[in-house]
């Protein structure tokens, strides 16, 4: 009887155990993510110099200032171009590479290629940008040297040193982009596809292209959406190429909202305005992510809505 009672009592409190384990992480999440985010909403409506005393409420003044600032507007334009072009490029290249590996019949070779393509991911991102700085170097960069070597010397450019090419140059950093999270997502998704579907397609005489278009792509709408959201967020937050290579120039040709935010906060000490930039980035991220998810679930056949 006692044992039964204890067991019943234990079962009554069992539901609590996972919450207890989750509590520390959740409390930290609240303290380090939710609260700053909520605070940031308030600070974006203030004039706040960080260490210069208390924030002073100024209404929408920071937002108004931003939308009248040509440099900030240019940074938004650059962000859209960078994000759209890079998202399409990365999606295309990584999906293609994942399909190529998936089409290899030998599992060992699949594994080897996967590892070879993923290994560069361990290189710190800042080193990648520094290396690409050498690639684009006007005098001795690999790109100009290569162009000259193949008789296209007239195409050689100061890639990072003129407004017409600088944004495109930083967009192509990391080409062919296979050492990236989307590649991992795609390869694992392809490997997880139901074998019977593929078997049936093969029996029906479906060729590779048709399989990719009519089976792989529809079945991978979820992973593709995830990759798109990650790439959009990466594009919105892009900062390292500006910090390492261009400073946002020439002119404002490579300026990004994140670099603008960084400079406003840490060089000009205008934390209120910088927080407003952060809020705009947040909103842009939400809108793009919402649209991506909407497209993903529109007429989707792979999920129950």
């Amino acid at each position: 009887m006692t044992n039964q009672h204890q067991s019943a009592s234990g079962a009554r409190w069992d539901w609590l155990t996972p919450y207890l384990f989750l509590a520390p992480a959740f409390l930290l999440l609240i303290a380090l993510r939710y609260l700053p985010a909520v605070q940031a909403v308030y600070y974006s409506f203030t004039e706040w110099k960080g260490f210069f005393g208390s924030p002073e409420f100024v209404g929408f003044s920071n937002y108004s200032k931003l939308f009248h600032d040509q440099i900030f507007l240019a940074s938004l334009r650059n962000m859209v171009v960078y994000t759209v072009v890079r998202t399409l490029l990365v999606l295309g290249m990584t999906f293609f590479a994942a399909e190529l590996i998936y089409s290899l019949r030998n599992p060992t070779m699949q594994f080897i290629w996967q590892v070879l393509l993923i290994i560069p991911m361990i290189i710190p991102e800042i080193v990648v940008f520094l290396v690409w700085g050498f690639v684009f170097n006007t005098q001795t960069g690999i790109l100009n040297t290569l162009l000259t070597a193949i008789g296209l010397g007239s195409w050689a450019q100061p890639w990072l040193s003129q407004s017409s090419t600088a944004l495109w140059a930083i967009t192509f950093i990391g080409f062919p982009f296979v050492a990236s999270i989307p590649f991992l997502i795609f390869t694992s998704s392809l490997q997880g596809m139901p074998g019977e579907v593929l078997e049936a397609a093969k029996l029906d005489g479906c060729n590779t292209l048709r399989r990719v278009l009519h089976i792989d792509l529809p079945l991978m709408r979820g992973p593709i959406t995830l990759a798109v959201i990650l790439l959009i967020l990466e594009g919105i937050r892009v900062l390292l190429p500006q910090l390492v290579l261009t400073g946002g120039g020439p002119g404002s040709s490579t300026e990004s909202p994140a670099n603008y935010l960084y400079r406003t906060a840490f060089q000009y000490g205008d934390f209120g305005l910088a927080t407003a930039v952060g809020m705009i980035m947040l909103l842009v991220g939400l809108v793009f992510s919402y649209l991506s998810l909407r497209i993903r679930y529109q007429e989707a056949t792979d999920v129950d809505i």
Partner: protein
Amino acid sequence: MLYWKRMLVPLVLVALFLSGCAGTAAPSDSGATDTAADTAADADAELSGSLSFYPQNYYNPEALPDAAAVVEAVRDEYTTENPGVSIELVPYVGDANTYRSWLLTRLSAGQAPNITWEQYSDRNAEGAEVWVDLTDYFEQPNPYVAEGEPGSKRWADLFPDYVLAQTRGGDGRWYEVSLDWIETGLFYNKEVFTQAGIEPDWTNMEDLMADCQALRDAGVEPVGVFITPEWSTYQWLDDIFFSSAFSDVGPEWYMEKYNIPGRDFRRLNPEEFAKAVHDGHVSVDNERFDVYLDLVKQFTDACIMDGFAGGVALADVERMFVEGQVSMAWLTTGSATGLAESVKFDYGLTYFPPISNAMNPHEIHTDSSYRVGGPSGNAQYGITQVTAQQGLLDEALDFLMFWTAPQNFSRVYDSYPALVPMVAGVEPSEIAAEFQFVAGMPERLVGDPIARLTPQFGTEHNRLFQQFMLGEIDAETLKTQYQPLLEQGATDACTQNEWDWCGE
């Protein structure tokens, strides 16, 4: 319903992910400065408390262990003499941008080192709300200086007048001691010059530009200088060309309160420059502005290396010189030691020639260029207001006086003699002494654009000049966009510093 549930979770995740961009630390109060009379270091009072000190490059135990050991020894001497005081040395954090982010974050949290390095222009922009005003303390004796020596009666006498003039804040006050100086020079590759039949004995800028063309014809890039929206070496050229174009009228903008006896041509204080903008003297409508732009463009086209406006930093220019990709590199005393170790060819040190009246009819210094050097060195130290609030001002001031005394700073300097010492009684190193010929030139009329009015003005100035130098915008477009920048910069500087002529 399920659809919305599915939507909600990723959207919340996105929000949290991005909130990292917007999240900030809580503000801290910065109280008013105690007066010198209230807090003056009293020699008889026993000092006690724990201080933290960021000596910048002089304390980099990983990269410069010998220098770090000397700094520790000097610190230990002080704490032995003052057993109630303990001093934590904060190791080198990183380059200027990294450090600035680090410092601002700590200042916001009230956790910056009590005595710390910062670039004088940034420090002056922050002023008395963040830093202790040292002006009155400069008038007091430094007890650690030997009797009869400069500084023993008045601390400020330890430092040259031009250093004091350039580190003075826009409000006329001093918030730091500046103990070393960066001098610049044009390093040139003697072997390349010989092959091209060139001698660096230019009489004027036209001669140099003609030689630049000869070097280009020989397939070598002439001058290694770069420009980004951030700090860049182009800014030094900008200083020279602006100084030249406005040299005949610049001295008319000096304010009596900033004048130094015997220095008829000196650098404009930020207030003087802002007032000159406010009064319409510095304006795109001034014919001298066209001369200034013309000098910039002519020199850029003739001499500055290709690819100067992106993907290049100071370290890249050094590397390009070492690897022979540029025949000249405009660098500082800070680069000299590294070059001596890594350059494998014969090289020398020279400087820019004067600008003739043929190029600029307004130039008054036709026999010399302008000295580009400044107090933006490794040893610029100020005391945070938080230190005063913690009741540690006497301790911090006393240690700073101890640190600046020649017998102490000379040991620190000798352990890492990259720059030119600016403390009476401390001798420059052999390499630093090679730059002495630059020290004899007239001071430039203006400081770097980032220090001319506000940091924001400097960034926008650099953006426009990048495009102008690249030929992406013409002079008229630049002028249209530059005038509002100038006026805004002057207004912002005036408001921040509460100068009395702002509303005029």
